[in-house]
């Protein structure tokens, strides 16, 4: 019980500290912007540790963070192999294929109003098919290795990307399109010089959403059949072996990879859409 009370006290202290920093004079510095969420996250971890220890929660239900970190450090080769299988082979390739396919479709849809009106409602219906249902089917069709995982990812990212790219291509103002007309520009000329650049903020919005979807899709698909490597495989078998520390180590990898993936996309976004007001700060 003492540890639980300690956890609450630490929570209070950390909160007070964060309020001080956030409302203090240095609030807008880079340091503060990193420190505040870091303190918050650390507090969560410390509370988790203390509460798990304080309440004697069995390891097979919820391991303490310290155990997870130890397992993480001990299993680096396994985690790396799983990471390569799931993230690099499954998620990334599916992400690239899915986004490319969405891009091509978006152009088709853009060129033909008939296709837009026909395809978009059907597409949104298909997008509502839950992954836990489609994944087994795709594993059945595309086999056990990463190809089927990539297929699941393609299915997951395709529609959000399509919606965002199409919305982005509509993003130009009437005036901008008229302007192109006054210069007697062709479809592709105005596509490359006007509509595509103007669509970029939307495209990146889609890319960001899809980056987390891709990772989750690849992991979940492994639950329905996989070779004996991969993050989803490891998670599901480790649960069976009650190796919960391993499960959490994989979740940690997933969270790190997901955040990094998201971060990289956001960074590229900054570079590409430097001109957008939201990026100029």
């Amino acid at each position, binding site marked *: 019980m003492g540890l639980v009370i300690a956890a609450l006290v630490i929570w209070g202290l950390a909160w007070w500290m964060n309020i001080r920093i956030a409302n203090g004079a240095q609030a807008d510095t880079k340091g503060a912007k990193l420190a505040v969420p870091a303190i918050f996250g650390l507090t969560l971890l410390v509370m988790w540790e203390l509460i798990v220890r304080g309440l004697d929660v*069995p*390891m*097979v*239900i919820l391991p303490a963070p310290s155990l997870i970190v130890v397992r993480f450090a001990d299993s680096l080769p396994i985690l790396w192999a799983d990471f390569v299988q799931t993230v690099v082979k499954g998620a990334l390739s599916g992400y690239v294929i899915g986004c490319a396919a969405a891009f091509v479709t978006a152009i088709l849809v853009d060129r033909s109003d008939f296709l837009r009106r026909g395809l978009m409602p059907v597409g949104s219906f298909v997008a509502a098919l839950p992954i836990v249902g489609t994944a*087994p089917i795709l*594993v*059945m069709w595309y*086999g*056990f290795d990463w190809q089927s995982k990539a297929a699941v990812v393609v299915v997951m990212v395709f529609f959000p990307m399509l919606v965002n790219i199409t919305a982005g291509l509509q993003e130009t103002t009437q005036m901008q399109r008229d302007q192109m007309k006054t210069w007697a520009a062709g479809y592709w000329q105005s596509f490359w010089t006007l509509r595509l650049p103007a669509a970029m903020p939307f495209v990146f919005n889609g890319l960001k959403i899809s980056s987390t979807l891709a990772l989750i899709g690849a992991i979940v698909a*492994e*639950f*329905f*059949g*996989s*070779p*004996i490597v991969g993050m989803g*495989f490891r998670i*599901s*078998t480790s*649960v*069976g*072996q*009650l*190796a919960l520390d391993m499960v959490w180590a994989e979740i940690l990898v997933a969270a790190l990879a997901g955040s990094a993936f998201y971060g990289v996309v956001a960074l590229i976004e900054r570079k590409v859409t430097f001109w957008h007001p939201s990026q100029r700060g």
Partner: protein
Amino acid sequence: ASHADSSVKLQLQWVTQAQFAGYYVALEKGYYEEEGLEVEILPGGPDIAPPQVLAGGGADAMLNWMPSALAAREKGLPVVNIAQPFKSSGLMLTCWKDTGIEGPQDFKGKTIGVWFFGNEYPFLSWMSQEGISTDGGEDGVTVLKQGFNVDPLIQRQADCISTMTYNEYGQVLDAGVSEDELVTFKYEDMGVATLEDGIYVLEENLEDPAFKEKMVKFVRASMKGWKYAEENPDEAAGIVLDYDETGAQTEAHQVRMMGEIAKLTAGSNGALDPADYQRTVDTLLAGGSDPVITAAPEGAYTLEITDEALD
């Protein structure tokens, strides 16, 4: 938790099917009620680790395969076998005959589907006894984590897959494959059979006499259910079907399953045979580089409950 009340929650390791007929029969026929018990049967699924549920207090007893239960014991979750309704193992590998596989040594260079989630232990120790690596390549087998149906074999994504005599094997036949196209290896025949479907509880709970008392009644009633199911397979299958809330099962399938299950429970009165236990432990200890358990477990089973129940 207090064990003074009369409620028992049983965690199954899979969805409602004839594999668990004995318990459903006992429930339906009122055998539990006769013992003064209120039994709730919790179906499982691929995402459920029964030992975890037990540890979390979500159930009083669980069904489990012994390798998995012993592994949990080593992980610091002391579970104890109190009864063993299944005498023999229904686990086997089913292979295409045209792959040229005739004996275990022919597995080299082939792709084999295995279930994991506890079911992989007997396979791994079998392979290590045969001296075959499981890391793929020319001289090893490539292991796949098989989903929970027989597609990998039908689609030829694997040369062999794991099947239970009472379930997946029938599904293979249902898919239009005839028996003479297949080669099967029963673990029982290969001498690597491990005990399946035993009843386990937490060791600390057994220290409570009231709980023990309850388990005695539970095991007694359950075995009564099992024996009834063995003798009346069609009726038992019907009862299971009634309890399946997903409405996904078909009658033909459950009837056939019940027939096969009856063969596995046939030799058991519910009491664990220490010789079977020893064979299981030996098989697991022979597990090679990736051992399921590292040392022979102590106190992993008790005969007290069955002794009392079967008097």
